[in-house]
């Protein structure tokens, strides 16, 4: 599989894949990294908001 990297598209067989996640009350987040030796060449992140501890800038005005 080809992976978009800072060096262009590279075959993933040349790279080391690392994945991680974060799960709390606000979000469920996953990320995927590809490394070429000691260099990070790709990192994608997917944040899923569970609910919104939002800071409403105009809530008072709307209400």
């Amino acid at each position, binding site marked *: 599989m080809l992976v978009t990297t800072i060096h262009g598209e590279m075959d993933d067989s040349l790279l080391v894949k690392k994945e991680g996640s974060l799960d709390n009350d606000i979000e469920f987040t996953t990320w995927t990294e590809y490394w070429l030796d000691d260099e990070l060449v790709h990192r994608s992140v997917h944040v899923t*908001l569970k609910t919104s501890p939002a800071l409403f800038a105009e809530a008072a005005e709307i209400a």
Partner: protein
Amino acid sequence: MTATHNFGVSPTRGASTADTFKAALYLASATINASTTAYSATGEVTGTNYSAGGVTVTNATAPASTNSSATAGVGYWTPSASITYTNVTLSTAFDTVLIYNSTQSNKAVSVHTFGSQTVTAGTFTLTMPSNTTTTALLRLATT
């Protein structure tokens, strides 16, 4: 939810179509909070394939409300699709997205924070919560 910001198509403001909303990302070091009243490039992320001002929010679902003439309720709205920044490199940590109304002088709608991230030649996707009275991205008590 159709006063300053018109999320739907039957506004009280006199327009006939919904406004355009955008989503901009901000550095973890930026000061974006409840006092933010409008989009600003100050503290916004910069990087490959990221355009200042961010991306347009998909708004295919009009806001809903549970209130009636007799009881108060909740007005709520959520973007109808994930917010995606494709093939970007954002090397400085960011942790905030500002949703703002580009039709109405870039006035701020809401600020949302998440764990600090960077992106390298990749995609940053922000998936919305379920559009319900308790989890929607925007929830306003109505009377």
